[in-house]
């Protein structure tokens, strides 16, 4: 099976990123999103605290009910915080969409196979938790279908974007989370 390339698929799926407040998980997705938004003030990228992207996006979504929050994170990060899928499904924030960029491995640490490469299906887990909308994207046709989910406010939605093993784009980011926090808040609150 020919899988999608994250460098092409993620920009197509997200479209105009200015529509969203974006929390990105660490490692690959932080590069995907940093490259896409150039760390514009609607973006907060994790660089550590693995497993923190899902709960942070939940806190943000509940705090900003009139804005759409997008959490873009990897299979490894989401596997580490799977309990939070249950929490999100319980609270059901309509304005939260999760994109799991699933390459089925830990690219950052040498390419070890992740649990999703060993048979774990995060779409079914999200569904089992009670997410009203879930979608697995493997083909280009499914990518276009997935795009429509991002146009709606009827989440929470969980999108499993299956991608090949290729690297994310090269991007030199700001590692200072305090600066990024201030930038993000200033954009929203002042």
């Amino acid at each position, binding site marked *: 099976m020919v899988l999608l390339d994250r460098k092409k698929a993620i920009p197509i799926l997200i479209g105009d990123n200015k529509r969203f*407040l974006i929390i990105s998980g660490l490692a690959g997705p932080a590069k995907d999103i940093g490259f896409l938004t150039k760390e514009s003030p609607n973006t907060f990228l994790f660089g550590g605290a693995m497993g*923190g992207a*899902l*709960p942070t996006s939940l*806190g*943000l979504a509940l705090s900003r009910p009139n804005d759409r929050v997008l959490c873009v994170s990897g299979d490894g990060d989401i596997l580490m915080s799977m309990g*939070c899928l249950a929490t999100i499904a319980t609270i059901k924030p309509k304005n939260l969409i999760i994109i799991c960029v699933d390459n089925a491995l830990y690219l950052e640490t040498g390419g070890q196979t992740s649990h999703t490469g060993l048979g774990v299906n995060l779409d079914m887990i999200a569904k089992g938790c009670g997410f009203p909308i879930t979608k697995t994207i493997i083909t280009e046709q499914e990518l276009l279908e997935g795009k429509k989910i991002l146009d709606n406010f009827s989440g929470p939605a969980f999108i499993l974007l299956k991608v090949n093993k290729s690297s994310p784009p090269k991007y030199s980011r700001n590692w200072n989370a305090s600066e990024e*926090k201030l930038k993000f808040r200033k954009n*929203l609150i002042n």
Partner: protein
Amino acid sequence: MIYNKVWGCYKIKMKNWQNRLYKTLKNDGIKLFSYVPDAGHKILIDNATKDNSVIAIPLTSEEEGIGIAAGSYLGGSKAVLLMQSSGVGNCINQLSLIKHGQFPFLTIITMRGDFGEGNPWQFAMGEAVIPTLNSMGVSCIKIEKKEDVESTIKAALTMVFKSERSVAVLLSQKLIGAKIF
């Protein structure tokens, strides 16, 4: 049966100060109450769950409460994490987000492995609460008397949301009573 009997005692002793504690948090504008259930937090959790003007978030593990607090701050709201001392251990790496990102963070922790504890399993984490939190940059303030609850919570709210510090308020077993085994 024993549990119910104990809870009966808890209820009489705690109701007033716990209700005041909830009002103090709410009056300060706390919107998100994340929690892992604990008997010592029961009244606070019940209050938050019944109140439509706040959001009570049951967690599967305490560490979720760290990201929720940070995300809530990014969006301009205030959050609190309610947990038992054993949950502190689950939070340690997530506190990297708070410490490195200098996020304000408030948690209220009911202690186990403390004054009069009868379950020997509770001591290892109970005794590690203050050193581990301190090592992750979280200041700890312990309350032992009910007359100190309101003033201490107000002080913690000021430290967290005015000075943007991370603070844990520890409710001692002297205050909440030790569970009987």
